[in-house]
């Protein structure tokens, strides 16, 4: 029973996440997803996501309070994602967080979504007692919205962006290639399913930004749009030659290319920075093959890997509450009420609009 009681609101993409923590203890992690509404469009539609957030927010907050067994009056603070993410979606959460904080007369912490993904790893629950996160650590965050490689020296004060995707996020690449192969949205689990029977070495797809000539400028950056085009080209050539497309092999080879780049660059960062720790986060970490390859190659490189439970890897409000709880514990005051949504918030801005 130590640490501040914080309710976190996360609406940066298609999940309405409400989390409640007491210090590092996770009390509730409720998630309402509008994923099904996006399925027929083959990707997240910002306006559809924003509408869904507005509908889901109040019931989600009520559900989280019930699950945590606390009342709004007991809260020490409210936390909300200020960015990065979809602007219109973020703004719904920002509006709600401000309304709630002013109504209750409680302090409000506006925080960074990406740093929240790292904070997910420090949360404990009855069935999860974790060793404290050790610094420094390299963090690889992979989802439908972002692909970022970070050097974390301290969660609340010192996070450096090493690299990020220059075009599509890894999760988006899975969605687009799934569509090419006639598979439904979201693409990650579908690619995984059909790749199970495929040969990951059947086709050598390109590894984006991995050539020696890319290393000076883009050593830690990612690019997946060329890979997607390469897969499309390969499939089209097979079709125009009248061949059956070996969907399993294409999916397995594509997945291997994505994973290879992600893991290679993450471990390169560990080696270059002399950091023997790698933290994985983001929804794409649900990909079993990614976890396998990361664990296997990290072990060979002498790097310890940490992976939060999957319910905390996808976007959620608990990580936002958890990050705010850490800020409070380290003595930081609340944000002013003047912040907005920042769709491109840099990772160095861990707390937005501090007083």
């Amino acid at each position, binding site marked *: 029973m130590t640490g501040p009681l914080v309710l976190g609101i996360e609406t940066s993409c298609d999940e309405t996440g409400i989390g409640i923590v007491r210090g590092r203890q996770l009390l509730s992690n409720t998630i309402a997803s509008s994923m099904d509404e996006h399925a027929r*469009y*083959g990707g997240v539609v910002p306006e559809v996501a924003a509408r869904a957030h507005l509908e889901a927010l109040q019931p989600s907050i009520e559900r989280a309070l019930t699950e945590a067994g606390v009342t709004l009056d007991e809260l020490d603070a409210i936390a909300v994602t200020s960015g990065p993410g979809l602007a219109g979606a973020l*703004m719904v959460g920002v509006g709600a967080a401000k*309304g709630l904080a002013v109504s209750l*007369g409680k302090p409000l912490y506006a925080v960074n979504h990406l740093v929240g993904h790292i904070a997910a790893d420090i949360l404990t629950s009855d069935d999860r007692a974790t060793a404290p996160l050790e610094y420094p650590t390299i963090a690889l965050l992979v989802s439908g919205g972002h692909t970022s490689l970070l050097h974390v020296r301290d969660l609340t004060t010192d996070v450096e962006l090493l690299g990020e995707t220059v075009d599509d996020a890894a999760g988006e690449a899975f969605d687009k290639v799934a569509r090419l192969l006639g598979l439904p949205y979201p693409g990650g689990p579908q690619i995984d399913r059909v790749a199970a029977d495929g040969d990951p070495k059947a086709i050598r797809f390109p590894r984006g930004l991995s050539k020696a000539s890319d290393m000076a400028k883009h050593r830690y950056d990612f690019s997946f749009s060329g890979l997607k085009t390469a897969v499309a080209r390969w499939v089209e050539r097979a079709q125009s030659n009248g061949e059956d497309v070996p969907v399993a092999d294409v999916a397995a080879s594509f997945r291997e290319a994505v994973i290879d780049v992600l893991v290679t660059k993450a471990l390169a960062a560990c080696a270059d920075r002399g950091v023997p720790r790698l933290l994985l986060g983001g929804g794409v970490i649900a990909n079993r093959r990614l976890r396998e390859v990361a664990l296997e190659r990290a072990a060979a490189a002498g790097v310890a890997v940490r992976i939060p439970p999957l319910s905390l890897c996808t976007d959620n409000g608990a990580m936002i509450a958890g990050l705010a709880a850490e800020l409070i514990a380290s003595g930081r005051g609340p944000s002013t009420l003047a912040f907005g949504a920042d769709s491109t918030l840099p990772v160095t801005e861990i707390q937005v609009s501090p007083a």
Partner: protein
Amino acid sequence: MILAVDTSLGTTVAVVDADGRTVAEASTPDPLGHAEVIGDLLAQVARPGITHVVAGMGPGPFTGLRIGIAAARAFALGRGIPLIPIPSHFAIALDASAEGPFAVVTDARRREIAVSVFDGVDADGIPNLIRPTRLEKRGAELDEQTHETTELSAAALARVGAAAIAAGRVLADAEPLYLRSPDVVQPGAPKRVSA
């Protein structure tokens, strides 16, 4: 006391007492920046003793409109008090001094306007909506005299809310008056990338 919040045009909040008198009011006509200003404006008028929150449900540009509704709902949730949704045009109609039918007109972007036709107030003191809110091309001929505005008064919105509460009437759904479907097209077959 009733707190009203509206972000369908600028950002405006107000508290009126049981007699309909304005206790506090704060607003900005800026049609952007709702997310940035909503907290400070609310903090200026928030006080103990608020019994209801009225939310202006639009019509208005979606992104801004939702911010006020989200803030109003959360404020009501925080205090454990009811949320009363009211179409924003009712506040404009209440303040408009017009004889006979008149059209409240606000900008709907994309060279369109949102139009609601009212005729006086009814026995409950609520503006009498005689034609549901609709979109028209900007420049379209309207049958009625028009009352176009880029601002509205949250205090007026609160008074409409008070009248609705007193009469036990529901003037709006829980969802915003979107008037448009989300702008999306279903994807066709993937485009060819090879020449």
